[in-house]
């Protein structure tokens, strides 16, 4: 029998049709080859519609039995609609990434029994998980909205901060598989409705401080909104804004609320997703806050923990027309390989999602239209998001978790679907992105009302998997079974002079003349946390030409001609 082989990856095929299909699948990012082949065979050129990315829904086989509860009673309090985020972390340092889901709580008029609590699942490998919330004492009963993970006391184990509606909590990892609450009124931040939360080292003293975004000043007596004769969730504009909080880690186990002295209290909007990153690569960490229905914040750090709000002056406050958006989730990565960190944010319905390209001169351009990432997002409400290389081809693709807030309008308004499919966009050579959801496997056909999502390698196969928290439902676990011949490397950073989690440290790899840059973040996406192992797709490279690590404390290391491996750990030199 004649055996055909793919001329590029040598994958054997028995039939010509299969060879052709494989050729188009294997080389969608080689436009000329795909185009040439199509022309030669008289086929319509389908370049741009093919993708290697492939997700399968394996939720039922994971052992995860968590069901999200938003505390709803039918009265439609806005806080229900915006819950909740989730986190991935290796809490027991066994090399497998564990999962932590936030949950709502009973609100006025609701009586869920037993009362909902957050849930933690230990990764046993091969996509199987074991519930350990009670054992680990992480089953917080507060109304969970946002979460960040980081080692606040530099003891080598990841702690968890919960931004709740009500008192916030910091759960200290005892290092023995259990957590203890960090008792502090400062940590609680009052009884506010929280949003996202991030940990970062704001003044370079080697420990993690905490930025807590807040959403609305809520009371149960706020009048209900009605639409088409039904009680529906009213938007944030109906509520007073709540100022964010900034907690300085004093390094002795105590925290001080420095919101006023740091400048953070100078402005207030309706805060949702938040990410701490160094937008201008000046060595200190700044904070970007996605605010709902109003301008976004970019808090520029002066390096000493004093902040100035410069969102408008950097082009990040609004979309390309100067219109405020219902900004929700955020991720940061270098999408075009120019060595600068770009920002992607999700938005509310009747708006396009937004990709801000970093121009390197302290300014960002809303490049959404040029990149094509807005296509098909206008009617959708988007929440969680991640920029990650799902097919290991060396550029960052995009995942968006969707779901409307309105749970009772599907029958009267075709633009409102409470449960809808999520989207995945394939990055084409760092120039534009294409929505490939329809061709990216059965995992993309799940219909839920998604909120937070995370992207991490759950089974250590070098491919980034996805977990999505669904409002009022079970989470979706998507195994990445992309048909890619490419490998990846994952990088763990251990700070010694810098904070132990290495938040704010950067890694650049150079492969076949192309550079990829990632920065370590503690908290991102939609009020979630993920990505503590930095993942680089390597395309067809046989070796990594160079590794460069910029530690947050200021030192830089470079390693050349690093042999191929699956993971690598860098420990900061003291």
């Amino acid at each position: 029998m004649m055996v055909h082989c793919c001329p590029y990856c040598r994958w054997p095929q028995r039939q010509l049709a299969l060879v052709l299909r494989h050729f188009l699948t294997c080389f969608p990012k080689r436009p000329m080859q795909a185009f040439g082949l199509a022309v030669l065979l008289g086929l319509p050129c389908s370049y741009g519609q093919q993708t290697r990315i492939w997700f399968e829904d394996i939720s039922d086989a994971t052992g995860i039995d968590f069901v999200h509860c938003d505390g709803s009673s039918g009265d439609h309090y806005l806080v229900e609609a915006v819950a909740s985020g989730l986190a991935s972390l290796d809490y027991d340092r066994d090399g497998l990434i564990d999962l932590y889901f936030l949950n709502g709580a009973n609100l006025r008029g609701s009586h869920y029994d037993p009362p909902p609590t957050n849930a933690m699942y230990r990764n046993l490998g091969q996509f199987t998980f074991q519930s350990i919330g009670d054992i680990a004492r992480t089953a917080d009963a507060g109304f969970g909205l946002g979460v960040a993970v980081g080692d606040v006391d530099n003891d080598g184990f990841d702690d968890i901060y919960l931004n709740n509606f009500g008192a916030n909590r910091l759960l200290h990892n005892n290092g023995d598989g259990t957590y203890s609450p960090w008792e502090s009124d400062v940590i609680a931040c009052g009884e506010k409705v929280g949003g996202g939360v991030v940990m970062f080292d704001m003044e370079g003293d080697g420990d993690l401080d905490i930025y807590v975004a807040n959403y609305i000043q809520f009371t149960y007596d706020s009048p209900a909104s009605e639409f088409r004769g039904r009680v529906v969730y009213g938007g944030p504009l109906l509520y007073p804004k709540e100022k964010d909080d900034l907690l300085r880690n004093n390094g002795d186990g105590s925290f001080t609320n420095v919101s006023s002295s740091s400048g953070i209290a100078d402005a207030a909007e309706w805060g949702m997703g938040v990410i701490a990153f160094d937008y201008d690569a000046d060595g200190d960490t700044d904070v970007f806050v996605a605010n709902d229905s109003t301008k976004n914040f970019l808090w520029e750090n002066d390096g000493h923990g004093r902040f100035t709000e410069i969102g408008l002056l950097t082009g990040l406050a609004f979309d390309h027309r100067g219109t405020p958006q219902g900004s929700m989730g955020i991720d940061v990565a270098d999408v075009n390989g120019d060595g600068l960190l770009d920002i992607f944010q999700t938005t509310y319905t009747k708006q396009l999602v937004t990709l801000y390209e970093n121009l390197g001169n302290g300014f960002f351009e809303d490049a959404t239209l040029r990149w094509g990432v807005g296509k098909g997002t206008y009617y959708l409400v988007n929440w969680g998001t991640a920029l990650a290389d799902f097919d290991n081809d060396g550029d960052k693709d995009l995942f968006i978790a969707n779901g409307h807030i309105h749970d009772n309008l599907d029958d009267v308004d075709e633009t409102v679907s409470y449960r809808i499919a999520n989207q995945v966009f394939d990055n084409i050579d760092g120039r534009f992105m294409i929505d490939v959801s329809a061709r990216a496997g059965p995992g993309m056909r799940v219909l839920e009302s998604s909120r937070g999502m995370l992207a991490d390698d759950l089974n250590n196969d070098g491919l980034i998997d996805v977990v999505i928290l669904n409002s009022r439902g079970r989470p979706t676990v998507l195994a990445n079974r992309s048909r890619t011949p490419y490998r990846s490397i994952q990088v763990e950073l251990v700070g010694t002079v810098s904070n132990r989690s290495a938040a704010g440290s950067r890694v650049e790899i150079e492969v076949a003349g192309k550079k990829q840059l990632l920065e370590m973040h503690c908290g991102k996406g939609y009020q979630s946390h993920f990505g503590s192992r930095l993942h680089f797709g390597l395309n067809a490279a046989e070796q990594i030409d160079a590794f460069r690590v910029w530690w947050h404390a200021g030192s830089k290391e470079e390693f050349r001609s690093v042999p191929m491996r699956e993971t690598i750990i860098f420990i900061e030199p003291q």
Partner: protein
Amino acid sequence: MATGMVRKPRSATAQSAVLVASVLSLVAVLCIWLVLRLTMLQNSRHSPLPSYFDSPSVVSWKVPYQSPDDLLSLTEQKVDEVVREFPNSAAAFSARGKYHYLISKKNAAKADWQRAIELDASWEDGILGLAELAFEEGRYEEAIDLCLQLRTRSQDDPRVPLLLADAYLSNGQAQEAMLTLQQHITKETTSLQALELLGQAHAALGQLEEAQAVYEKALQFAPDNKEILYGLGQVYGRLGDREKSRQYMDQFRQRAVSKAAENVSKAKGFTDIEHAKHIAAQTFFDCALVYKMHGNWPNAEKLVAQSLLLVPDVAVRLYELQRILHQTGKIAEAIDIGQRIVSLDPEDVNQWLVLGGLYAEIEMAEESLQAFRRAVALAPDDPRCKRARAILRSINEGAGALVQ
């Protein structure tokens, strides 16, 4: 089959001369008629006009509804009735398409607009509706195709080049957007939206100096325009001129703050019933236009009136009602509507001129003169006002002669 006799076409110049002569003669006859009529009626007196919307017959037209859904249900019944009555009317299907669009039933809207186009392939509202839907759903190529179809049919509708340019921009075809807008701007030199989009197209192509020039030109027409100020701030930011960027962004910020307050106020003021009333009013109005098109003036009047009873004081609907009333000989009522229009916008030159004519028709000379004088005072250089001034001058001369 050819008859053998071919009529030689007139030259374009000769045709134009004939046309101009005809128009001038018509205007002259009208002016003489108006002068004579007003001169004779100058001293006549009048009784106060009844308010149109207080008349018992109009009051009885109020749409009875108990709830927002009830009102929308009645609206749907009405538009369905129009479609049943005119099953071969593109306008009827188009009206129902718009209603379905307004209540976010996209598929039904699409079906109605497609039916409208089947009935009349040149039905522009149907094609535009489909183009807008395609644009919103991110099917930019389809939106572009539909806009190109429309552009070849009609050069006049300014919405078409703007949507086409927006679709090109959204589809990453900034070069095509730029060309479309440049063509449009040669006709609509002060179209702010076109200038804003052109600035965006240049910026998307990295032509920052050109974008800056376009935005600065736009700023001459609208120095307070928030979007233009933002565009300039963006361009200077990208050019690395932080100081200039800050200057424009600060101006933008001031306007954005008031817009934000307005948004909050709108959100707090939103009520379900008002939303439903707006949809119903628009749909009743669209149905009225269908009846008008088919010569059913009583139904047209009733539906526009119902639309205005639901959402009063919408100028375009008041104008339409006035036209219908005038057409059906209800001059006093048309005047009442005109008074309402000028009370909403006292600087509406067009309406003062209309009122001048209407008062003259029912022999209210003093009011007619006042209306014409008001128009002339507001826009002395407007060609229509120049004609009105000539009429006023003639009247004064005529009145003087009568006294002597």
